[in-house]
């Protein structure tokens, strides 16, 4: 049975474009422009979904995406809302959360169990014994949730845009259009957004008696080049400094506006009566949307429940569409009579004043309603059952009140107050740069909304700095458009305050009785307003209930907090295209071609080792290290942070930054440098090379150097130092050539004499290497003769190639970070951050030699004086396993145990080394730090291994190799 009406003026459907789709396994046809709910309703389908908890049949309720009655999924997508889901050919949808389909949903049994499941029952049961909870929890989890995930699904990549404007107007209804036009006419750049497919707001479905308003406003708006209208776009979130998330189906636009004007209208609110959730009961605005936008008849015989003129207008619209309006039931007492009521009466429609729909009667099919039971209201506004009367109908249109669509205003910090003339909330205190107009502002008559929009638009322009006259504010409506308490108790309950969560009036009463007496506690205990529509249709009535129970005003009761988002936003929209920038050294291509296994280090990628066919990682690493020990190797160390420190105070500055001495450092010399934080804990290490009296070249670690540089910049300001700091990390690349044959290799391409006496250990030279101006340092971390060659990044690849070529006969080969780590470990050099943690002092790390406590000041010195006066808690020591040790080696971070107590921790370990047996570094209790002490180290939960504390370094203790 089709409910499709003949063509209506302004309808959104395109009758020449039929759309075939499937729902619950059956074929249906709708039109392009239909949403799922309208298309199914047009096909005569009543049950479009099942409720979350009791699996009651549900149909159209708000038709605006403000309820979760119709939630569907397809093979890839979940939790789609049928009220706002445009149908497309080939869609194959089914309702979520049913037991074996919508029609025969097995979980309908939940409704019969409902008397045994009062609000919060789950807090009182099933917890003892604990075993039982596991079983019960399994049942609970099966019942929870709506749609299923689809592991194979991949959402389309969503774009992110940025936009800027002077004024954002939210809502393209009459007041929003009028505001946007007024502001744009004054020259402001205006962006007008609306979440509906077409602009016009309620003019599209409610005020068809004034069709010229919509066309006039749209015509004016379109003529203004500085006014952009975006439909299908929700203002989802408002954040500090007028930063607004605009979401459409393809992208997230991040808007920076200078002012925000909210004309988002109102959300029609339900009346609470028995069976107020069944298919056929719907908001009057939903009935109007259905008729005007989609040309679908809501029902054949309607009762209109109202408490304002809007309901009477809806009754006229229903009558126009050929629906028999059996009665208009008006909650207001008999005395009020308006012109529109007279018009309804003139249509011969019965008007029942001072009466309420007390219950909807379930139809025989159980899929809809058969009648409304109407009662007179007593002085307390409660139904007098003796007066009950049954009116046959298959639809009830409810128009008993509105709540401001306040999300964006509230997110922006607007406070709302209850207006007792309007009987609803209205903005009370607008933040700077935030404006409200139209129904959200408590103004209801169409002409006044347009005037209010204009006024607010001009006020916004004045705020933006235009010198203009702002007209006086439009006063709020004096008549109530909402009823103070459209909520009616019923012995058989099923009078829902929250349709999403299946919460009945009694649930709120019970929660209150149990002592959850504030709106926030009731919300959390009963879950009212926590469902997918976030209380858009339930919060207002819940507040009315709680206020009445507490004998408080609505302002005293308070609203729950508004949080982003206005409507749910997809994860793909928010994630957007994901950018993960990383940095590559100039030699990156070479490494990869040479088979390097790259690993992320900070924001960089570095070769961990160079893989050779049919050799294990460990073999490759050991070979690379051996080559350095016996021949020559080279490593790309471009990722090190590199700074220049220049100026008259440069030396004095470095003295204060680092723990060592630099003031008397000779030009052409370089030194190890250690830095601590103010608490005296090790933070950074590197080298400082003096290039001139007033110029130093400094290196720091790949991962920590950038943060260290920032701190250096700050200290330079705080210390009032006359220094210039430059971070040349990206500008300079660096290569370390190491091994006994390193000198020979470098000598081939260096244009100066680099003999042992001309260029000794711990010296730095400016020289030309392979035709490139370089800073070359004689360093010794790997324990061999080695040169650190720093060159401009754009020339570095050439220098690298030249080194490879020059080393060809010496068997030069590249080595990666793992071999470097092994070589450093053998030489007893700790790696800050690897062998130390954020609370390691230099004394614990055996770095006393790098700390000059006699200097006048350095960062951390004052605290180190305190540390020095206390007994050490641990020391970093070398450990060695017996030569030929065959047992399993402990991993790094395994514990050292002494008489059942934690006595330390391994920080570095190397199983295969160039120095014989396995070695490592470990923190141990000071009483275990003496060389020769035997340590028990955990290998796994059961096994222990044994190692000895040994003197550092493991390799070349007399430093004969690096000179």
């Amino acid at each position, binding site marked *: 049975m089709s409910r499709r009406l003949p063509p209506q003026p302004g309808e959104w459907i395109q009758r020449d474009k039929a759309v075939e789709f499937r729902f619950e396994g059956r074929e249906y046809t709708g039109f392009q422009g239909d949403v799922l709910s309208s298309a199914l309703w047009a096909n005569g389908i009543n049950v479009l979904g099942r409720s979350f908890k009791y699996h009651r049949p549900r149909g159209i309720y708000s038709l605006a995406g403000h309820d979760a009655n119709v939630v569907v999924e397809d093979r890839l997508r979940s939790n789609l809302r049928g009220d706002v889901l445009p149908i497309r050919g080939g869609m194959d949808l089914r309702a979520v959360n049913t037991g074996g389909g919508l029609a025969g949903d097995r979980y309908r049994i939940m409704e019969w169990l409902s008397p045994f499941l009062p609000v919060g029952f789950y807090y009182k049961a099933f917890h003892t014994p604990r075993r039982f909870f596991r079983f019960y929890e399994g049942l609970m989890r099966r019942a929870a949730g709506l749609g299923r995930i689809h592991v194979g699904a991949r959402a389309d990549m969503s774009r992110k845009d940025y936009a800027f404007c002077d004024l954002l107007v939210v809502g393209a209804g009459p007041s929003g259009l009028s505001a946007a036009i007024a502001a744009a006419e004054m020259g402001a750049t205006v962006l007008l957004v609306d979440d509906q497919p077409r602009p016009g707001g309620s003019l599209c479905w409610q005020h068809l008696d004034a069709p010229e308003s919509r066309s006039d406003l749209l015509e004016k708006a379109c003529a203004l080049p500085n006014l952009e209208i975006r439909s299908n776009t929700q203002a989802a979130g408002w954040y500090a400094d007028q930063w607004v998330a605009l979401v459409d189906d393809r992208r997230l636009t991040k808007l920076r506006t200078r002012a925000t004007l909210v004309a988002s209208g109102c959300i029609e609110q339900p009346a609470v009566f028995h069976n107020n959730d069944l298919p056929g009961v719907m908001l009057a605005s939903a009935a109007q949307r259905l008729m005007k936008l989609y040309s679908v008849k809501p029902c054949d015989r309607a009762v209109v429940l109202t408490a304002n003129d809007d309901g009477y207008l809806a009754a006229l619209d229903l009558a126009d569409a050929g629906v028999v309006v059996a009665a208009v039931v008006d909650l207001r007492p008999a005395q009020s009579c308006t012109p529109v009521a007279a018009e309804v009466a003139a249509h011969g429609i019965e008007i029942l004043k001072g009466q309420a729909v007390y219950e909807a009667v379930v139809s025989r099919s159980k899929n809809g309603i058969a009648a409304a039971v109407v009662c007179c209201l007593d002085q307390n506004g409660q139904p007098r059952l003796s007066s009950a009367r049954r009116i046959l109908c298959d639809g009830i249109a409810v128009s008993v009140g509105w709540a401001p669509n306040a999300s964006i205003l509230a997110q922006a910090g607007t406070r709302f107050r209850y207006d007792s003339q309007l009987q609803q909330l209205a903005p009370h205190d607008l933040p700077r740069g935030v404006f409200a107009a139209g129904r959200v502002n408590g103004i209801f008559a169409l002409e006044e909304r347009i005037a209010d929009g204009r006024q607010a638009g001009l006020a916004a322009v004045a705020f933006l700095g235009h010198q203009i006259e702002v007209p006086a504010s439009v006063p709020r409506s004096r008549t109530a458009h909402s009823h103070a308490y459209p909520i009616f108790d019923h012995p058989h309950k099923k009078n829902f305050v929250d349709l999403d969560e299946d919460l009945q009036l009694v649930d709120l009463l019970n929660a209150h009785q149990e002592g959850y007496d504030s709106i926030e506690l009731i919300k959390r205990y009963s879950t009212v307003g926590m469902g997918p529509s976030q209380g858009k249709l339930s919060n207002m009535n819940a507040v009315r209930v709680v206020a009445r129970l507490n004998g408080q005003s609505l302002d005293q009761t308070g609203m729950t907090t508004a949080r982003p988002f206005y409507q749910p936003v997809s994860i793909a929209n928010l994630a957007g295209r994901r950018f993960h920038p990383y940095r590559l050294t100039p030699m990156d291509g070479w490494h990869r071609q040479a088979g390097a296994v790259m690993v992320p280090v900070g924001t960089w990628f570095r070769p961990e080792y160079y893989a050779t066919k049919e050799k294990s990682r460990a073999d490759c690493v050991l070979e690379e290290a051996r080559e350095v020990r016996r021949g020559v190797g080279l490593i790309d160390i471009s990722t090190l942070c590199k700074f220049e420190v220049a100026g008259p105070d440069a030396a004095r500055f470095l003295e204060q930054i680092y723990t060592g001495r630099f003031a008397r450092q000779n030009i052409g010399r370089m030194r190890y440098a250690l830095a601590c934080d103010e*608490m005296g804990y090790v933070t950074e290490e590197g080298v400082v090379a003096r290039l001139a009296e007033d110029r130093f070249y400094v290196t720091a670690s790949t991962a920590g150097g950038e943060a260290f540089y*920032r701190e250096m*910049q*700050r200290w330079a300001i705080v210390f*009032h130092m006359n220094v210039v700091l430059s971070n040349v990390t990206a500008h300079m690349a660096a290569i370390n050539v190491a091994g006994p044959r390193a000198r020979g290799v470098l000598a081939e391409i260096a244009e100066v004499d680099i003999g042992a006496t001309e260029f000794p250990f711990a010296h730095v030279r400016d020289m030309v290497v392979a035709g490139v101006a370089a800073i070359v340092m004689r360093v010794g971390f790997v324990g061999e003769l080695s040169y650190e060659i720093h060159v401009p990044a754009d020339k570095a690849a050439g220098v690298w190639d030249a080194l490879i070529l020059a080393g060809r006969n010496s068997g030069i080969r590249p080595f990666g970070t793992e071999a470097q780590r092994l070589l450093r470990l053998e030489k007893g050099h700790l790696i800050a951050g690897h062998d130390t943690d954020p609370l390691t002092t230099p004394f614990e790390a055996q770095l006393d030699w790098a700390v000059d406590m006699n200097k006048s000041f350095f960062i951390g*010195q*004052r605290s180190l004086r305190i540390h020095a006066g206390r007994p050490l808690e641990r020391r970093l020591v070398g450990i060695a396993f017996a030569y030929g040790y065959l047992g399993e080696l402990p991993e790094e971070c395994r514990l050292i145990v002494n008489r059942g107590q934690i006595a330390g921790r391994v920080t570095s370990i190397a199983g295969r080394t160039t120095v014989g047996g396995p070695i490592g570094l470990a923190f141990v209790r000071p009483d275990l730090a003496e060389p020769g002490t035997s340590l028990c180290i955990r290998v796994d939960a059961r096994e222990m291994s044994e190692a000895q504390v040994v003197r550092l370094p493991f390799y070349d203790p007399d430093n004969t190799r690096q000179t």
Partner: protein
Amino acid sequence: MKSISCPINGTRPLQEFQYGGEVREMPDPDRASDEIWTDYLFNRRGEPGVTREWWYHQPSGTWFIAERDIVKDEFLRTYLYGSETCDE
């Protein structure tokens, strides 16, 4: 996203900035007692109200001072370290 006014580069989005902690005056390390020194090291003002803070504009490497209401998260004033008296 918030906007912050860098004294050198003008108003820029928050993502270009890094917070650098409260501004604290270092006591004379040679004269301060351990108690005063560790109070300087560890304790913070942290309380509601306007706080003087270090902020860093990352792309340009600019450190500056901001006076910020840390309850409302409102930047009241920004200036370079040491210049607070001259710009009034």
